[in-house]
């Protein structure tokens, strides 16, 4: 589905990703792990076209995403939940969802499906996004992305700083999306969460894939966690 081949990218003269190859399949959750600075968030931005690829390719069902301007990428069904949520803070919950719906011309049915997943948002539609609690903000960030009805969902550390009940809710939503055929790429730092969710785990180091393992081959004390994440 989403295929990344020999990808190199960075910021100006500073290279961050080097010859990276990766695949995300439909109805699978691919978890990305790695230390700070390994290039995980840059990879997410590169898939979205926000950081240009200097070499290699990113294709989604045969469409070369790497050659599109950033604003044309989500139209092909790639949705992004950035690290730190990056909501449109002064806009209301309804307006944030509207931005997501407008991306691929989705309508009220999609909005209702998202609000069914996160009923708390339905109660807060007219509230300014910046005034939501951390958990509610993360629901909105994910909800806004789901308004695209995505084929590929990129989640960059969605459980960072959240309480356990909220983490469980997000885990359930991600698993439900998997059942609908969405290919999910999840950046996550906690091995327990990864082992609950992942079909495959990609360990990154120095801007490239250092190891790729099926979840069945990993245990909580697998050496990859210590080697590439430090936990």
């Amino acid at each position, binding site marked *: 589905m989403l295929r990344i081949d020999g990808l190199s990218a960075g910021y100006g003269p500073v290279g961050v990703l080097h010859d990276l190859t990766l695949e995300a399949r439909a109805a699978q959750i691919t978890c990305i792990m790695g230390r700070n600075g390994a290039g995980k968030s840059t990879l997410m931005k590169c898939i*979205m*076209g*926000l950081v240009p690829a200097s070499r290699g390719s990113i294709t989604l069902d045969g469409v070369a995403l790497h050659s599109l*301007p*950033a*604003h*044309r*990428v*989500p*139209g092909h069904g790639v949705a*992004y939940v*950035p690290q730190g949520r*990056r909501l*449109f*803070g*002064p*806009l209301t919950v309804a*307006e944030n969802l*509207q*931005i*997501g719906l*407008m*991306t*691929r011309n989705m309508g009220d049915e999609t909005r209702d499906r998202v609000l069914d997943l996160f009923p708390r948002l339905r109660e807060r539609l007219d509230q300014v996004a910046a005034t939501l609690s951390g958990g509610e903000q993360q629901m909105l960030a994910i909800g*806004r992305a789901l308004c*695209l009805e995505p084929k590929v969902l990129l989640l960059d550390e969605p459980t960072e700083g959240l309480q356990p009940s909220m983490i469980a809710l997000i885990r359930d939503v991600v698993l439900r999306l998997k059942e609908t055929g969405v290919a999910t790429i999840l950046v996550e730092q906690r091995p327990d969460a990864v082992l609950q969710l992942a079909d495959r785990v990609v360990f990154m180091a120095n801007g490239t894939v250092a190891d790729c393992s099926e979840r069945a081959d990993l245990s909580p004390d697998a050496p990859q966690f210590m080697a590439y994440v430090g936990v």
Partner: protein
Amino acid sequence: MGFGPFLLLALMESAVTAATLALTAVGLSLVFGVMRVVNVAHGEFFMLGAVAAWFITNFIGGPPWFAFLMALALAPLAVAAIAALADRLILKRLDYEPEATIVATIGLLYIFQQAALSFYGPQAMPVEPPFNFRIQLPWFGYSAYKLSVILLAALVLIGVWLFLTRSKAGLVMRATQVDRETAQAFGIDTDRVYAAVFALGAGLAAIAAVLIVPIAQAHYLMGHDPLLLAFITVIVGGLGSLRGTVIAAILIGLSDGLIAFFWSPTLAKILATLLVAMVLVFRPQGLFGARTT
């Protein structure tokens, strides 16, 4: 005339200044708020609006109301088109880098000024008002056109507010203002948004100029004062805050007009500049701007 009627007359004159200042300053504030571009050429878009109005009314001819209406419709469109072109040809190529765009808009200021001098000339020329009658109050008669300027400016500002808060295009502009990168990740072509905002900002300055040009004549150096007052207004109101900009425009426009009326225009500018200094010292985010950490 007693002091009361004299004060009323001064207030009405000041309200005309406040109305056109609000339009000009909202344009400047929009451009800064969404694009983070300090547009030093904003006053020249005002001047181009006035000069374009003069050309259009003279070219079209016919009854004054018709020529003026055409100028009111076409001059802002022409200025907006020039602004969109300047955005595409210059600001976009600089990647909207703040320092570079300040230098670039200073360059634009001189280009527009010299172009006006070359094609329009050094003389100040009036545009005939669309109608010419006075409303007779118990103490004095007052120009109906000046009152219509206040009304029209208020209508345009309400229109801008409705556009920004109720339309999809306005929502897209506000999202881009908050976070350009995330806006792109949701399919928003931020280059087009920037061009549209720059055009809208310039168009608002041009509307203000068309409204004022039957009262103050069109001249190639007329952009200086509106630029200074618009900057003062935007700083006092809070950078990027449209509500703050409109309130500050009313305060500054009225006080500028009253002080100029009772004392001197120079004193009005000195006091306005002092007000900016006070705001920058005690409330740098402006009266209605959000504090940034």
